[in-house]
C-alpha cells in the first residue's frame, strides 16, 4: 500500500473501460448467482454439493453450516440447540469475522440483487429521496428480535425474513415466496432509498456487528487523488462509511474503511475514476 503523495503528472490515465468500471460488480453478481446455483444444483440437477438452505446446510455431507443469527434466535426461544447447529454457526461466524460480516449481504444474500436493482432504478428514474429512515433502526430491530423470540418462544424473524423465505422457496418449491422479494423491491424503489438493507434488516445489522473488526477492508489508499466527484457516495449502499477514510487525512484517520457497516461490495473501487480505492486488509492500519 502506498500512502506517499503521487505528483499529479505521474497519475496513470484514469480511463476505465466498461469491464474495469464494473469489475467487482460482475465478480459479486457471479458469486451471488453461484451461491444460488450451488443450492439449486442438488434438487434440479442431482449434484449435491450443498444440501439444505441458508438457514442451515450440509456441504458435501461433511461440513455443517448454520446461520448464527437463526441459531441465536433458537437459543433465545428457549431451545437447547443440538451440537451440529452450534458447530455450524461457529464455522460461519469465523468465516465472516475474517472476510467482513456484511460480505454476507453483498456477496451471498439473494435479496441484494433485488435491492441493488431498486437502487439503480431509483437513480435512473431520478426518484427523490423523500422518506428517510434512520440507519440505526436496524439495530433496534436487531435488539427486538431476540426479545420477541424469548417472549413468543418461536424463531420469530424467520416468519418475516425475506432472505430465507425467498431462498427456501427457490430450493424447495416457490409458493408465494416471490412476493416477499417483490415487497422488498417495491419498498426500496418507492418508499425509501436502500431502505431495507440499509435501515431495517436485522440480519445485515447482525453481520455488520459480527464483522466489525474483520480482516479484509476497502482501503482509500490513494485518497490524495480524490477530486471530490462524489461517484463513490452515489453508488455506495452505506455512504457514511466512506467519509472518515476518504476525508480524514488531516485528522490522522486511517484510509481504511473500518466501519462494520461497509459491505465490502467493492463498488467504490469500480466507479472511482481516480482509482482511489482498493481491497486491502486491516493489518496495513498498524504502522510502525
Amino acid at each position, binding site marked *: 500500500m502506498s500512502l506517499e503523495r503521487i505528483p499529479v503528472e505521474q497519475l496513470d490515465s484514469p480511463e476505465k473501460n466498461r469491464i474495469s468500471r464494473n469489475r467487482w460488480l460482475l465478480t459479486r453478481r457471479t458469486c451471488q448467482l453461484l451461491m444460488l446455483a450451488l443450492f439449486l444444483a442438488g434438487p434440479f440437477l442431482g449434484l449435491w454439493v450443498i444440501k439444505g438452505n441458508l438457514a442451515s446446510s450440509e456441504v458435501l455431507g461433511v461440513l455443517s453450516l*448454520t446461520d448464527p443469527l437463526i441459531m441465536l434466535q433458537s437459543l433465545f426461544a428457549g431451545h437447547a440447540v443440538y451440537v451440529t447447529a452450534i458447530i455450524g454457526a461457529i464455522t460461519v461466524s469465523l468465516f465472516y469475522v475474517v472476510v467482513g460480516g456484511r460480505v454476507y449481504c453483498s456477496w451471498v444474500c439473494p435479496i441484494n440483487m433485488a435491492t441493488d436493482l431498486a437502487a439503480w432504478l431509483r437513480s435512473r428514474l431520478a426518484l427523490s429521496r423523500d422518506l428517510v429512515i434512520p440507519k440505526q433502526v436496524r439495530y433496534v430491530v436487531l435488539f427486538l428480535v431476540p426479545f420477541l423470540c424469548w417472549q413468543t418462544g*418461536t424463531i*420469530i424473524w424467520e416468519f418475516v425474513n425475506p432472505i430465507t423465505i425467498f431462498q427456501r422457496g427457490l430450493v424447495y418449491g416457490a409458493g408465494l415466496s416471490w412476493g416477499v422479494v417483490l415487497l422488498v423491491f417495491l419498498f426500496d424503489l418507492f418508499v425509501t432509498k436502500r431502505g431495507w438493507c440499509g435501515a431495517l434488516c436485522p440480519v445485515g445489522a447482525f453481520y455488520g456487528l459480527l464483522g466489525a473488526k474483520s480482516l479484509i477492508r476497502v482501503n482509500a489508499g490513494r485518497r490524495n487523488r480524490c477530486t471530490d466527484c462524489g461517484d463513490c457516495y452515489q453508488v455506495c449502499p452505506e455512504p457514511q462509511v466512506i467519509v472518515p477514510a476518504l476525508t480524514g487525512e488531516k485528522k490522522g484517520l486511517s484510509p481504511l474503511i473500518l466501519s462494520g457497516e461497509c459491505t465490502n461490495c467493492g463498488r467504490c473501487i469500480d466507479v472511482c475514476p481516480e482509482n482511489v480505492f482498493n481491497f486491502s486488509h486491516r493489518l496495513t492500519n498498524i504502522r510502525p
Partner: protein
Amino acid sequence: MAFLKSRRKFIGRILQYLGSLGVFGFLIAGHAQREKTGLPAIVIRPPGALSEKDFLSACVRCGLCVRNCPFDTLKLAELGEPVTTGTPYFVARRIPCEMCTDIPCLEACPTGALSHALLDINKADMGLAVFTGVDTCYAFTGIGQCRACYLACPVKDRAITMEAHRRGGRDVFMPTVHTDYCTGCGKCEHDCITDQASIKVLPRHLVKQDAGLVV
C-alpha cells in the same frame, strides 16, 4: 452524536424510535402468533419432532430432513400454506412415513427439533391413527373382508388389530388402534381403500388426552 442537536429533537427522536419499535414489534409478533396457531389436522410432523410449541423454537426450516427422506414423504410448508412457513410435515394420505430404522430425517436435523433422543422408530410419536369409518369401512359395515390398514401397519399385530363385533346380526371386524403402539406413520390411512380414508392419522394432541385430566 451530531444528529441530536437540541433537547426537543432528541426527545422527538427517542419517541420516533420507541414508536417504530412498538409498531414493528407488534406487527411481527402478531404475524408470528397467527402463523403458529396450531397444526391442521391432516398435517403430521416427522418422527422425533418435539411438541409443537418446542418445535417452533427449535426448527430452523433448513429442510435437511426433507432432503434425507428416501421416500419424498416430507415437505416444507410454503408461504401461504396453513402450516408455519418453512417447517417440515407430511400428509399421510399422500405419502406416509415408511419408518426407516435408521431414521435419516432425524439424523440430518442440525438443531434437535427432531429429537435425537428417539433411537427406535417404533417408539415414534408422529400422530395417532383414528378409526373414522363406522359407516364406510368395508370390514366394519360388513360389505367385504378388507383389512388393508391392518396389513399396511408396520407395527404388526400391536398397533392395529381387527376386533370382532356383532352388528346387525352379523360378525363384523373393526380396525382397532392401540395407542401405546401406534407411531402415527399413516400407512393405514394411505392404504385404506375407501374414497375418504376410513382410518386417519391425526396429530396426537388432538386425540389422546391424559386420562387424569378428563373431568
